[in-house]
């Protein structure tokens, strides 16, 4: 079997980001379903939350490339 172990690390780091982004969008959808007029108010917050949750998965991606040589 060939390949880089760091890619497995990226896979692991993607779990957390995926769960976080899923929770954020689920919360936004249910908030919007309950109170459709609040959609505009909560949309920027949703994007901030999703961007913050996504960051660690992206760090994992970068580290997978940084350590792919070794």
């Amino acid at each position, binding site marked *: 079997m060939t390949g880089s172990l760091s890619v497995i690390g990226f896979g692991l780091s993607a779990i957390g980001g995926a769960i976080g982004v899923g929770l954020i969008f689920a919360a936004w959808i249910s908030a919007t379903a309950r109170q459709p007029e609040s959609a505009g108010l909560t949309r*920027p917050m949703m*994007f*901030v939350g*999703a*961007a*913050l949750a996504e960051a660690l998965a*992206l760090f994992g*991606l970068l580290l997978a*490339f940084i350590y792919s040589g070794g």
Partner: protein
Amino acid sequence: MTGAPVIRAEGFPPGIENFNYRDWIPALPDHFLTTITFSVFLAVGILICFFLVSYRNPQLVPTKKQWIAESIYGFVRDGIARDIVGPEGIRFAPYFTTLFCFIALTNVFAIVPFIQISPNAHIAFPAVLGILSWLIYNVVGIRKHGLWGYVKMNSVPSGTPIALYPIIIPIEFVSNLILRPITLSVRLFANMFAGHMILLVFILGGVALIEAGGWFMAASPLAFIMAIVMTFFEFFIQLLQAYVFVLLTAVYVQGSLAEEH
């Protein structure tokens, strides 16, 4: 006229070597004029020309160009500067608009034919933008609260028990004052990097499947269709990342301007 990558479409699994672009004029210093630096200058030129031309002769009933420029500015001013930072955030609206347009345009270069690389897929360009945001929110906060008050506000969340200070203060200090520009720039960089990589995987994968011959060839249209689908998805991601970058900058500025409580 385009600078092709040094190694073009050779090995199927694309790697970081696909991000090295060859110099247009070898006599100049290394990486002085490549597709990447050219597209940065192009973006700056397009933005300056667009906003100058569309606002040179403002009409009460806006022309088409003026309408586009005004809606971009209005979107950033009302949707980001005023909603996030509050009334005193209006003075940051010009910077936010410039930032948004610049990031969006340089991101979209990733799917513009003959350029097809975003400068933001190299960490240097997002890093400069991240440092600029870092300077702005720190200077704004220090001017408002004074150096000590600003550091204290960012290091000690209100209502923290004193027993937790040794843990909380280093974490809050590092995450609020040191890591923010890094996460800002790495988020933009990694999204553009991953986007370029995904397109390379599908397009080079399609080529590799054709070259493999036999039954593999039948699967290559799937790869190309997927590349087209991913191109549209990338367009969405590019605009979203520009929005997120400006939004987070606004959130940080708002945090610096907030009253202590």
